[in-house]
């Protein structure tokens, strides 16, 4: 009840608009993959192509190594969980969950048993006889999940499933979705524009923009070592500082910036096409700033604290560098740090966490 998914050169055009541009992407069997990107990046189109609701303009999708060109959604080993849940409003919760098995010719009794089993799995056994309108948003969500899993798909497609829930419920459902995915072993492909949600549940994050795959990999890899500037910016707050490659040797690279020379380990360089004199972007995540001397620290010089705000888990500060006052850096400092507005501080960053990407 699980299968590998391979997108081969998938392209899709709406008239002149290129929604998807030759997507090549593999998702392993049993993997929880998240398609992440801003609205209009093509992630939902890609999902609908996989589900069979939209035929691709070019290319093919293989599910379990098999092509499903011209096969309607009802005959594919995929089911979709829609953003608005799309529950049948006139049927009870049980009838909703039984619908798929019944349509596939399973007897009423067996379908009912299966429905009970799945509703127990999503902790909704007591809603068996209720109608969807009697349930809360989170409960409808679970019914939709049970209904989609009732037909034992190889691949479950989730189209922004948590978008309508409040923050607390969303976090709870993220944990539950992941737990259920681990339990049933089905390949889950989940579409979202929320990078925190993606990091919370994904085995593999696929970052998309303008119909292309910008990056794909595990959450930590995509966040800490993004393949592109778009990925670096989309995955979370980041300071991008224009730099110019001045020299490179076996273990270190040296850049010129408006803050002066910056030496970084060779591993910081995430692109191998940079030549001497080329410009690039130095990326520093706000949490990689340091207030006190530590090992691997790299000084960027002296800065004035423009503002400092308490954010609960950290203090978010805006720093204006003395060497280049117009360039404001965003830094997160530990909760207990004592910094105040107007203070002058020496800015240091974690040398091993900074990275350099192409413009």
């Amino acid at each position, binding site marked *: 009840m699980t299968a590998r998914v391979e997108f081969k050169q998938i392209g899709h055009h709406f008239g002149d608009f290129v929604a998807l541009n030759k997507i090549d992407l593999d998702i392993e069997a049993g993997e929880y993959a998240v398609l992440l990107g801003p609205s209009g990046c093509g992630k939902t189109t890609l999902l609908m192509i996989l589900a069979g*609701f939209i035929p691709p303009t070019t290319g093919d999708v293989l599910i379990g190594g098999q092509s499903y060109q011209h096969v309607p959604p009802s005959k594919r080993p995929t089911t979709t969980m*829609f953003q608005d849940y*799309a529950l*049948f409003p006139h049927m009870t919760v049980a009838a909703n969950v039984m619908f798929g098995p019944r*349509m596939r010719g399973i007897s009423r009794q067996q379908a009912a048993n299966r429905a009970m089993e799945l509703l127990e799995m999503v902790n909704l056994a007591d809603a068996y006889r209720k109608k969807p309108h009697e349930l809360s948003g989170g409960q409808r969500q679970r019914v939709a999940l049970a*209904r989609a899993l*009732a037909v034992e798909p190889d691949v479950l497609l989730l189209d922004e499933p948590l978008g309508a829930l409040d923050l607390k419920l969303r976090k709870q459902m993220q944990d539950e979705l992941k737990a259920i995915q681990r339990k049933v072993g089905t390949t889950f492909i989940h579409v979202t524009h929320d990078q925190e949600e993606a990091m919370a549940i994904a085995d593999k994050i696929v970052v998309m923009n303008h119909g292309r795959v910008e990056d794909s990999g595990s959450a930590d890899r995509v966040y800490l070592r993004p393949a592109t500037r778009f990925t670096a910016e989309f995955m979370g707050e980041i300071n991008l500082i224009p730099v110019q490659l001045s020299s490179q040797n076996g273990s270190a690279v040296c850049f010129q910036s408006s803050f002066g020379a910056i030496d970084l380990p060779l591993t910081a360089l995430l692109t191998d096409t940079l030549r001497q004199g080329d410009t690039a972007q130095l990326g520093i995540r706000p949490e990689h700033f340091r207030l006190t001397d530590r090992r691997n620290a790299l000084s960027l010089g002296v800065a004035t604290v423009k503002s400092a705000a308490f954010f609960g888990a950290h203090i978010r500060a805006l720093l204006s560098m003395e060497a280049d006052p117009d360039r404001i850096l965003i830094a997160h400092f530990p909760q207990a740090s004592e910094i105040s507005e107007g203070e002058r501080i020496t800015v240091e960053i974690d040398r091993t966490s900074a990275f350099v990407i192409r413009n």
Partner: protein
Amino acid sequence: MHRLRSIGVISYLLLVYGFIFLPVVTLVLFSFQEGRFPIPPFNGPSLKWYQAVFSDSKLTSALFNSLVVALLSSLVACFLGFLAAYGFARYRLPGAGPIKAAITAPLTVSYLIIGFGLLVTFNMIGVSRSLLTVGVGHVVINTPLCFAIIYASMGDHQLNIERAARDLGANDWQVMLRVTAPMLLPSIIAAYFLSVTFSWDEFIIAFLLSRFDVTLPVEIWSLLRSGLNPKTNAVGSVVFLISVVIVLLLEFTIFRRGALSDRKS
């Protein structure tokens, strides 16, 4: 000042409702008249004219004919209207705009023109006038109405629900019968009952297209030709009563359901 205004409001209300309902009240009141003329002074009450109505076989069979025509023609109109609405809402058709305009056009054409046109057509193709031709006439006038009501209730929200059904393995017919139609049931029922009331008291088309078996409005008309009589009041009251029953049915089925589904579906 405030008081003056509320007096104004109340008298305006009484005036409007009086204007609408006074004729009906008079009609119903004088159906219980004891004497031979439905004019003041009222002496009664008496049920003798109702007795006269129900012992008049022409009137009772016309009443039965009217019910049959209304119930069956509305069924057909609703079915056709639903199919048309489903087609327009769910498929991209070439020339959908003009076709949609054409299907709703009969709503704007006078019943006289439609009835006359049908009469000429039936004559031309050699179909003799009967309750069936009356029924066909009522299907013609009520299909656009049913289409408009059902079409208005089909939105994109249901589109995803139908997609989900298809995704779970249902074919086109199963989607339509098990998901779309039940989901739209409130508006289908509303269209049906509205269509029934329109057919129930429709006169011109029924008059032009019927011959020996007639519907109630046609029978009442021929009754009126022989002069005013409390019997016409009594039969008019029966017509009114049945219309009221249909409206109440509508109220209890649709608006109850509506109240439920408004609580976010």
